[in-house]
């Protein structure tokens, strides 16, 4: 298990669609047996990179290897070793779950007997074993479809698993189930997992290593702890009723903290010993008659890393956000 190369190397990958540059010289390395979180907003280029690594899209520049194999020249071999669950599930709605799994197994060169055994095993794993065998996949709920799609990606016990926004649009319970399954696959089978997400929490909780992509470029990379440590200090966030007030507060707070920036009607101050220094900051703002609507003190999060790197907040609430249809 340890001798197999399960790494991913991406070297200066570029992909353009006409005038639009989806990926602009992306380089990264995913170690064998790790969970890699590829974090970025919609349209940042996450799905484009997954499609290139999964051999269904060509890059317009650069190179990449998956499990030590070049994705451009060894595509068939790469396909045999990877499992892929794309953001849009690819299920034939008139087939049954077992049929799909057995066919998938056969296409990955399992014998009929192996494929049947494997599909029963997987249906249990993803919690679909008790579903009426005659039920068409088209009648499944969104969460069930997603779990079946994940099972299809696992049919041949791939060395490397690509998950494109595996929990987007799922309810919190299903999200946690998918997280647990991802951890189990990684821990028990040593599978390398490359997952894209727009959720900071997901990257933070699952990934050993995170890269943040924005507008087709990697803007930050490291372990979640490293990335947060790069922010260094604690973050005090003041919310004001108007962006105007936030702008005035920025000027006042600048001399008192290490770093300060605004985001809409909020002001973020980075400083040491935030709790001890807070009263002083409040006095200054109060003297200027700026109405504070909210104050929080927090350890830096990946969102702060993202804000630091891009100047904008990622700010996606998974519980409120509807499934996005925009290509990313």
């Amino acid at each position, binding site marked *: 298990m340890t001798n197999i190369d399960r790494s991913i190397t991406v070297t200066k990958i570029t992909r353009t669609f006409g005038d639009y540059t989806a990926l602009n010289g992306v380089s990264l390395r995913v170690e064998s047996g790790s969970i890699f979180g590829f974090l970025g907003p919609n349209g940042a280029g996450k799905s484009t990179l997954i499609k290139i690594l999964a051999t269904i*899209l060509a890059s317009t520049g650069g190179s990449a290897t998956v499990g030590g194999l070049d994705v451009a020249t060894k595509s068939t071999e790469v*396909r045999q070793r990877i499992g892929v669950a*794309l953001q*849009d*599930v690819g299920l034939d709605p*008139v087939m049954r779950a077992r049929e799909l799994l057995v066919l998938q197994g056969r*296409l990955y060169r399992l014998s009929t007997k192996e494929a049947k055994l494997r599909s029963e095993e997987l249906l249990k794993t993803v919690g679909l074993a008790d579903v009426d065998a005659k039920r068409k996949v088209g009648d499944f709920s969104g969460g069930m479809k997603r779990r079946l799609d994940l099972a299809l990606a696992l049919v041949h016990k791939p060395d490397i698993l690509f998950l494109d926004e595996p929990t987007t649009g799922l309810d919190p319970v299903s999200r946690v189930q998918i997280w647990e399954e991802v951890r189990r696959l990684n821990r028990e089978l040593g599978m390398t997992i490359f997952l894209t997400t727009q959720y900071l929490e997901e990257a933070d909780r699952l990934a050993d290593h995170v890269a943040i992509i924005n507008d087709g470029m990697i803007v930050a990379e490291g372990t979640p702890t490293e990335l947060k440590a790069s922010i260094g200090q604690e973050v005090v966030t003041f919310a004001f009723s108007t962006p105007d007030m936030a702008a005035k507060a920025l000027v006042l707070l600048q001399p008192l903290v290490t770093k300060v920036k605004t985001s809409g009607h909020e002001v973020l101050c980075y400083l040491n010993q935030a709790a001890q220094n807070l009263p002083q900051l409040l006095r200054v703002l109060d003297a200027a008659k700026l109405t504070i609507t909210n104050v929080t003190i927090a350890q830096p999060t990946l969102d702060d890393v993202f804000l630091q790197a891009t100047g904008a907040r990622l700010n996606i609430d998974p519980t409120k956000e509807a499934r996005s249809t925009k290509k990313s």
Partner: protein
Amino acid sequence: MTDIILLTVRTLKYYLRNPAETIPGIAISVFFLLVYNAGLSGVSNLPGFHGSYLAFILPVAIISAAINGAGLAGQSLVRDIQTGYYTKLLLSPARRLAIIWGAMIAGATVLLVEVFLILGLALLMGLKSQTGLAGYGMIILLTFIWGMAFSGFSVFVALKTKSANTTQASTFVFFPLIFLSSTFVPKEYITSHWLKIAATYNPTTYAFDAMRSLLIDGWQAKPLVLGFGILLAFATVTGVLSLIQAQRSTRLG
């Protein structure tokens, strides 16, 4: 090879579960056979017309079944493209062309089943052939080539447009192909000049001629050579077009 069989079986299962996709094709063919035979069989009493009208109209019913069966190939591909299953297949190590051939072979199988049904019905209606069993074999072979030609066309449209509506709409070439030909009366009897020209350039005319010669006149070299030659050429053109398009659509975008 295994991939082709797996994907063909999958598509055939779909047709078995959704008879609504194949029944209209058979119904139209049976309609041709029953209604036109009943309504137009008097034509065979015209001077110069020889043989039964049943034998004359049978090729129209067969070719119409073939067009419907073959059109299914493109439609099942579009269905897969739209459900995303096509992408799932592309992600798998399945042979790229097996993904397309699976759909084409399944369509061809439906086509053959339909042709056997139509032939069986004609035999029940009292069809007599001058060339016997071998002649029927030839007719089935001609139909198969014709079907492959049309299936190539439908796959080409499906992969090119990726649109169910356009692929469905493209089957409307069925009408000019079937009707701008020596459909109801022999070509000599067509009085309209433009229709005669259209019939001359329509490959279907040569399929009709070859089949009719087998049923009515016995073994004749000229209509058979023309029939097989033109249909093979037609099938080659659409086959090459669909292969180029297939390679283009499965190659990395």
